[in-house]
């Protein structure tokens, strides 16, 4: 085992997959000579050359489209979009093309691309660099959406995403790149599908994904000090969604909280709670609780930003509410 930072884990997955399959290539803005804004491809340009590590112009819709076109002819591009905010410029090619080509060709053409991008708020990046947007992709048929919670998942899931024959939206998080975790030295894969019960508990289920999962884990520690046993579920895959694991956990704990860093409307939390109501309404002993961002463009001032975005205390308070303690 070695301790790797999240960015190092992503870099390792690139390196192993580039070495494994000559059809794998990476493309994006400043990923080559510079090595990526978050270092996720550092050193790979020097190792694999400009044929396989392609620095692109600032043309998100079209360089993503070029990756998609190349994938239709058998290549396996890993496309980095510098920030999920900029992925809005590539929505046409991702949502109207990549997500639909398999279906509208009657299964005859596939688009095995991975689009990796950091989503989420970091530190005072203000409204145009703080989008989360997972919900946009989560509501698009024909895409897979995964949200690795740490270095272990990041490396193993990226490798699986590269080998998967569907378009995969791989959502990282700006505040997670330097988090460190033990990772096996030998090659391993993590499956793209399935939620994971990471911490077992009996009194309440806390559900999150990437950053909001980490908030749930911290809140579970706080609850433990109050003598409350929280079960924590990492969704891992937002699409397809593992309804079964969610149902089984809620049927055990009878109380549930969903945490997300995004605004609430038409979001991950609303979807999860709808699913719970459809699948196990009668297992609930109290109203489900949603923890989410304020309904505002993310502000710059540190105190306002802090107020707009949920933290572990918000999750803790929300859990107490679901438990009828406040």
């Amino acid at each position, binding site marked *: 085992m070695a301790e790797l930072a999240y960015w190092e884990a992503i870099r390792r997955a690139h390196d192993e997959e580039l070495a494994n399959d000559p059809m794998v290539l990476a493309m994006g803005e400043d990923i080559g000579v510079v090595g990526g804004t978050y270092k996720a491809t550092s050193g790979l340009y020097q190792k694999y050359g400009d044929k396989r590590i392609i620095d692109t112009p600032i043309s998100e819709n079209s360089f993503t489209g070029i990756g998609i*076109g190349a994938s239709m002819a058998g*290549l396996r591009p890993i496309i980095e979009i510098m920030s999920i905010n900029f992925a809005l410029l590539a929505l046409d090619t991702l949502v109207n093309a990549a997500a639909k080509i*398999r279906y509208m*060709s009657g299964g005859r053409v596939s688009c095995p691309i991975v689009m990796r991008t950091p989503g989420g708020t970091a530190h005072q990046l203000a409204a145009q660099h703080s989008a989360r947007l997972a919900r946009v992709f989560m509501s698009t048929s024909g895409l897979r959406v995964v949200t690795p919670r740490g270095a272990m998942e990041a490396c193993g899931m990226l490798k699986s995403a590269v080998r998967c024959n569907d378009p995969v939206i791989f959502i990282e998080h700006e505040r997670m790149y330097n988090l460190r975790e033990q990772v096996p030295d030998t090659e391993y894969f993590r499956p793209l599908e399935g939620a994971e019960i990471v911490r077992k508990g009996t009194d309440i289920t806390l559900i999150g994904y990437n950053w909001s999962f980490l908030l749930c884990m911290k809140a579970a520690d706080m609850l433990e000090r109050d003598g409350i046993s929280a079960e924590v579920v990492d969704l891992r895959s937002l699409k397809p969604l593992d309804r079964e694991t969610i149902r089984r956990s809620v049927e055990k704990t009878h109380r549930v909280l969903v945490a997300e860093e995004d605004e609430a409307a038409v979001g991950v939390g609303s979807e999860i709670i709808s699913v719970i109501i459809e699948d196990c309404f009668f297992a609930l002993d109290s109203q489900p609780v949603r923890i989410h961002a304020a309904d505002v463009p993310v502000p710059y001032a540190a105190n306002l930003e802090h107020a707009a975005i949920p933290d572990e205390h918000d999750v803790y308070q929300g859990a107490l509410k679901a438990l009828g303690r406040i």
Partner: protein
Amino acid sequence: MKAADQKRLLREMIFFRRFEERCFEAYMEHKIGGFLHLYSGQEAVATGVLETVRRGEDYVITGYRDHVHAIKSGAPAREVMAELYGKETGSSRGRGGSMHIFDPTVHFMGGYALVGQPFPLAAGLALACKYRGTDHIAVCFLGDGANNQGTFHETMNMAALWHLPVLFVCENNQYAIGTRIDRSTAVTDQYKRVCSYNMASSQHDGQDLDAVLAAAGKAVEHVRSGKGPYFIEFLTYRQRGHSMSDKTAAYRSKEEEAEWAKRDPIKLYGAKLIKAGVLTDADLKAIEHDVLNEIENDVVKFAEDSPAPKVEDLNKYVLDDRPDPRWIGPLQNS
């Protein structure tokens, strides 16, 4: 060119025209649904350009006016018609319809409804050709209106920058739905617009099949020999409305339509072959009769007789139907 090839090309264009006109009839009978965009009047462009590429090796991609491009690329006409009928035997198994014909077995990589979307997809197909070290190329057909999308400029830049083996064919039929080109576009000569990307380009008569063949042959050779992308513009005219819902009288004159009707590509080429003694009037009649017969008794019959997709298969083809559990899972919780 050999007389047999000339006759074959004339027959193909007559076939394409009849195919499209038969679609019109089937649409009126409510056998075809959705949006339907016919290619009548522009046949010399797809016929001429695709005659000069390698079937099944080079990639072809286009917009929603795609039936003829698919058939000329090698997609069976009966499967294209079955697709329009929404049948399981269709090119896209009835999931795509008129605007989304696919046949990857002949490298026809689809028709797309989003104006301008195929530009980068074509460049990506070309990137794959080059990446694999082949001398295959990608050919992208789009209209004049598509050139006002951002993808046009973004893709021309990258295609030129990376010397991608892609041929962009601009079918300039002067209109984007009802907006005449000079009302939407500051520079009406489309081939001039790629100059700022240092891309080779030229403009030609799209009604004269021989002119198309000659120009396309050179452009394909340019691209295949590794000299980088090429943008070729053909001046042409669609005889029908943009789709089945617009009245051309609202945006163009009868006189203009009549002028272009004189330059109908099939009439021009047929007259040329008759004048050259390659063909007699009787031969032409026989071809027309033969085409009518084939469309009715093979193409349409196949579409009519084919089964609709099964409703149980609604969720098929959303994702890979045979996911590898090693990568996909699902993860098991203990």
